[in-house]
């Protein structure tokens, strides 16, 4: 070595590996407007599709007349269910084991349902054509309330045999989909009966929508010469889409290439398969030309992938000292007209059974009933792992209600019930094995950071001042300690449509010491091209800047289940590390050969292999890469490549402590976030800058959901919130600054100890905002009100509590 040789720290820094706040490689193209989103794709001769949609929530279709539309110059085809039926494509399977109409087959079940698909030379003509399609409807009684639906004589799904089992077992009523039960029913009821204190509440998590700024869309291009279909689309799971397209179209899977280009946000909206994709594929096959379909914003909000809509009836019991003894939950899940929830097959209510949260609850029982109503299908995980945000909201509300019942401080109640550090791995009463956690440390850090005791004193004073007429503003302190369950998941119990939820990474090292890695996931803003390169840099000792990450092209990337449910880092990230380790193992043999020592006599050191005990003798990974391609090494194949398909042994369990301090104007119902502190423990931190950005974004989505965002229906099943005038997305003006913090408890089973973070802030944020609202009114007797906490609902709460004099 000479003086010019960088020292070990510099070599480490040069890699920009794990822990580096590396700037994102994606940003060069995005800041210049050179991203390539679906609607940017332009193919020779491309046609455009547009839907005729039902204005009614429940109606029989008497007739469809397409003559006028077909007569319009530039319209090439108008598809209806009748046209799709001979192909067996008028219905399609859903991810939840149900089936869904691609185009209305005899009736419609929700407002905005797809009735006909017009194919035209451009999108303007397609829209004009859609206006000209005449549909005669006969209105039917509408069911928008799931409790009513379970009692009603009105049969929504006439296609289903009411006596036959559904995909998840027996159905109790013609509008019932499934019952899912976990835990000990009788034991839990006994505990509730014999405990000192029981708190009971109905916790409703309202229907909302992920609403990414880019809507869903696709371009289907059937090349009749080669028999190959290329399908570009906003797909969060491109490989699964390829398999689904193959299964329903009959095209062989090798003749289908699915490409997810840049995606303008997903948040769960882009997991499912939608009628627009099927119709575009059919239209391309029929016309032999590429067909583009991009939904507009109203279509997006009204028809593709709602989230939540869970009515969670809960009971929680405790000793009089506050030790929780049992938890009972019955959920009525409004799934809309078709069960198109995106959950692993064995979990019709997702991971709702994580609803014991961060607490050591010895006995618990959960039942979920899925119900059909005249609303849009979906039930996707909006920036959360399957139904985890519902579970977290439920338990964090129940804890608050229990604290009221016990007349205890809610922070203290949490503390005495947390699963203790020495209890991990911890098996919950509802069957999950929590891999790791240190909740007390996180909690104490959070309480100190916000000055919790002083806040409570200030709040008490505020209540006095309010009662004395000195102020009209109340102070709420919203506490949350959440535990997520992400990284689905182990193939033994997680699959979607029979596809195991592993993920994958394939790496090729180039002779000059740079690399390309391809994964089965797809970024929608998370920065995979940046962070996966960092994982690899640390594993294989080549700079992240020399590693290209590629995702989303099923012809080149290895099979994987895609990006949602915070699964990219826990699953594909693990595959990346494991593939990197295979590279390193081969590199070790090459290095040993080059250094003329035994394999076991070299060891990896940042960016090189060194001879043990003689660090001046080394081969850098760059040198090794070249050797892999230019030296004939006995017993070793040329080249340096690896692939890993990673089946995770367990889920990961990120957690966090969030505290929201909120001022509420009792008269207008307006709120102001004075402080928001978010401590996240996502295990090993790959890129702190990106983690912080994910937390800011997730909290803002949580703010929207808790404080105003909803998909609301009137009694006729009309969507009342179909544009961004009424569907609440906060601007920079309504959004506060957040303080982020962390603790680090690595996952013991993940190769690099990472747990995933993208969804934590939504999961923990919603209860934090909501609890702040509730807490502000606790002194005046409030136990539970439903979200969203928009102005009029907060006003109503204050009014009902008699605070308006």
């Amino acid at each position, binding site marked *: 070595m000479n003086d010019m040789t960088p020292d070990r720290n510099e070599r480490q820094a040069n890699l920009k590996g794990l822990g580096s706040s590396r700037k994102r490689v994606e940003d060069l193209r995005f800041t210049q407007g050179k991203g390539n989103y679906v609607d940017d794709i332009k193919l020779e001769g491309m046609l455009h599709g*547009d839907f005729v949609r039902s204005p009614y929530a429940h109606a029989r279709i008497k007739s469809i007349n397409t003559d006028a539309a077909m007569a319009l110059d530039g319209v090439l085809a108008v598809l209806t269910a009748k046209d799709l039926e001979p192909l067996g494509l008028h219905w399609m399977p859903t991810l939840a084991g149900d089936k869904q109409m691609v185009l209305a087959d005899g009736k419609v079940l929700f407002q905005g349902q797809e009735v006909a698909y017009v194919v035209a030379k451009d999108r303007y003509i397609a829209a*004009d054509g859609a206006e000209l399609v005449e549909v005669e409807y006969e209105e039917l009684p509408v069911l928008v309330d799931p409790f009513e639906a379970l009692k009603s004589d009105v049969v929504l799904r006439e296609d289903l045999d009411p006596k036959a089992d559904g995909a998840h077992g027996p159905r109790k009523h013609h509008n019932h989909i499934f019952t899912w039960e976990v835990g000990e029913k009788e034991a839990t009821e006994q505990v509730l009966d014999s405990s000192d204190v029981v708190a009971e509440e109905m916790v409703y998590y309202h229907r909302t929508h992920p609403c990414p700024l880019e809507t869903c869309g696709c371009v289907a291009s059937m090349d009749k010469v080669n028999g190959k279909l290329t399908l570009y689309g906003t797909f969060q799971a491109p490989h699964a889409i390829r398999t689904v397209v193959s299964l329903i179209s009959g095209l062989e899977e090798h003749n289908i290439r699915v490409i997810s280009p840049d995606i303008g946000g997903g948040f769960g909206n882009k997991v499912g398969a939608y009628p627009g994709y099927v119709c575009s594929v059919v239209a391309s096959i029929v016309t032999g030309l590429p067909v583009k379909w991009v939904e507009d914003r109203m279509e997006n909000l009204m028809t593709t992938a709602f989230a939540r809509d869970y009515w969670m009836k809960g009971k929680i019991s405790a000793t009089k000292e506050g030790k929780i003894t049992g938890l009972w939950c019955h959920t009525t899940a409004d799934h809309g007209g078709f069960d198109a929830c995106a959950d692993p097959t064995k979990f019709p209510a997702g991971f709702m059974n994580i609803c014991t949260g961060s607490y050591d609850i010895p006995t618990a029982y959960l039942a979920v009933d899925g119900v059909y109503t005249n609303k849009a299908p979906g039930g996707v995980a909006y920036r959360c792992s399957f139904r985890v945000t519902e579970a977290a909201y439920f338990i964090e509300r129940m804890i608050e209600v229990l604290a009221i019942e016990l007349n205890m401080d809610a922070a203290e109640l949490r503390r005495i019930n947390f699963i203790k550090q020495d209890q991990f791995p911890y098996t919950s009463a509802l069957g999950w094995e929590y891999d790791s956690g240190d909740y007390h440390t996180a909690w104490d850090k959070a309480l100190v950071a916000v000055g919790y005791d002083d806040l409570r004193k200030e709040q008490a004073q505020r209540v006095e001042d309010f009662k004395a007429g000195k102020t009209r503003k109340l102070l709420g302190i919203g506490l949350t300690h959440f535990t997520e369950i992400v990284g689905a998941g182990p193939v033994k119990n997680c699959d979607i449509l029979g596809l195991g939820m592993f993920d994958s990474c394939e790496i090729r090292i180039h002779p000059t010491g740079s690399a390309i890695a391809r994964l089965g996931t797809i970024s929608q803003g998370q920065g995979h091209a940046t962070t996966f390169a960092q994982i690899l840099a640390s594993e294989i000792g080549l700079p992240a800047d020399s590693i290209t990450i590629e995702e989303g092209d099923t012809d080149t990337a290895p099979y994987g289940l895609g990006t949602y449910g915070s699964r990219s880092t826990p699953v594909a990230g693990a595959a990346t590390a494991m593939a990197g380790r295979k590279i390193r193992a081969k590199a070790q043999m090459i290095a040993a050969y080059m250094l003329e020592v035994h394999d076991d006599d070299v060891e990896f050191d940042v960016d090189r292999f060194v001879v043990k005990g003689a660090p001046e003798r080394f081969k850098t990974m760059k040198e090794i890469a070249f050797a892999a391609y230019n030296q004939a090494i006995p017993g070793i194949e040329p080249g340096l490549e690896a692939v890993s398909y990673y089946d995770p042994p367990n889920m990961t369990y990120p957690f966090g402590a969030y505290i929201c301090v909120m001022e509420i104007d009792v008269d207008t119902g307006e709120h102001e976030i004075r402080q928001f502190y978010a401590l996240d423990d996502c295990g090993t931190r790959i890129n702190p800058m990106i983690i912080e950005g994910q937390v800011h974004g997730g909290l803002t989505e949580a703010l929207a959901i808790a404080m*105003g965002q909803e998909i609301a229906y009137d009694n006729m099943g009309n969507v*009342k*919130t179909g544009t961004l005038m009424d569907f609440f997305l906060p601007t920079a003006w309504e959004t506060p600054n957040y303080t982020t913090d962390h603790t680090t408890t690595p996952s013991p089973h993940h190769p690099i100890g990472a747990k995933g973070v993208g969804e934590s802030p939504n999961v923990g944020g919603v209860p934090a905002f909501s609890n702040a609202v509730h807490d502000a009114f606790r002194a005046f007797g409030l136990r539970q009100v439903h979200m969203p906490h928009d102005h009029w609902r907060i006003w109503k709460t204050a009014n009902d509590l008699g605070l308006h004099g």
Partner: protein
Amino acid sequence: MIPAAFDYHRPNDLNGVISLLQEHGDDARVIAGGHSLIPLMKLRMAEVPHLIDLQSISELTGIDSGSTIRIGAMTTQADIIDNASLASSAPILKEASLQIADPQVRYMGTVGGNVANGDPGNDMPGLMQCLDATFILRGPNGEREVKARDFYHAAYMTEREDDEVMVAVTFDAPKGGYAYEKQKRKIGDYATAAAAVIISKDGSTCKEASIAMTNLSDTPVFCAAASDSLIGTSVSAEDIKNAVNSMIDAIDPAEDNRGPVEFKKHAAAVVLSRAIERAWQRA
């Protein structure tokens, strides 16, 4: 969201506009900033076979702000915000304009469009009623004047005839204190409730008062009784309460996503009392 096809006209003077309106009658609509009309056209909720763009008509621009203020119909909210002389002679216009929509929309949104189309959600109509403004309309028979307080009949139904164009608004420079108080769900939203208040003082008593409310009925609501009730008082808490009660009698809000009727009335009361307090402090 794709609008239906239409013919586009961009006349260079008002006579051109009026003859197009005469020619096409109901089938023609004028467009200024377009931020109310274009979304409706894209949703195919407004059918406009002939669209007449007013952007090239210089007669419709300009702000004169002496003791009588005249604002051309094509003046944008951004123009109002930027006009220093107007900000000093009638500061309530800037205060209100800053609460309309968002920056991009304010570059396009015009006074004429905002007052003429009769959307009860628009802020300018109530403000103009508060200022006791006069609207100048030009039609085939020349110009006529209509008081803002007489202009609105129902949602989207106004005194303007199909062949008339809004040319300008005029009003006397307001005296005394002012406030435009608006509660909304977020930036870009229409008001849940909004109040425009102008009050002048004589010593410690209220000399003149003018109150108008927005989005609390199918038209803007000039509250004559509430305004009059303040005159001669010292604008005490009790006086404000009386004015608010008179206002509540005058409005007729409808339930929508912003809340039920009862809440709207409550919000109206809150914004008005805050507006009166603020205007009084400034008087």
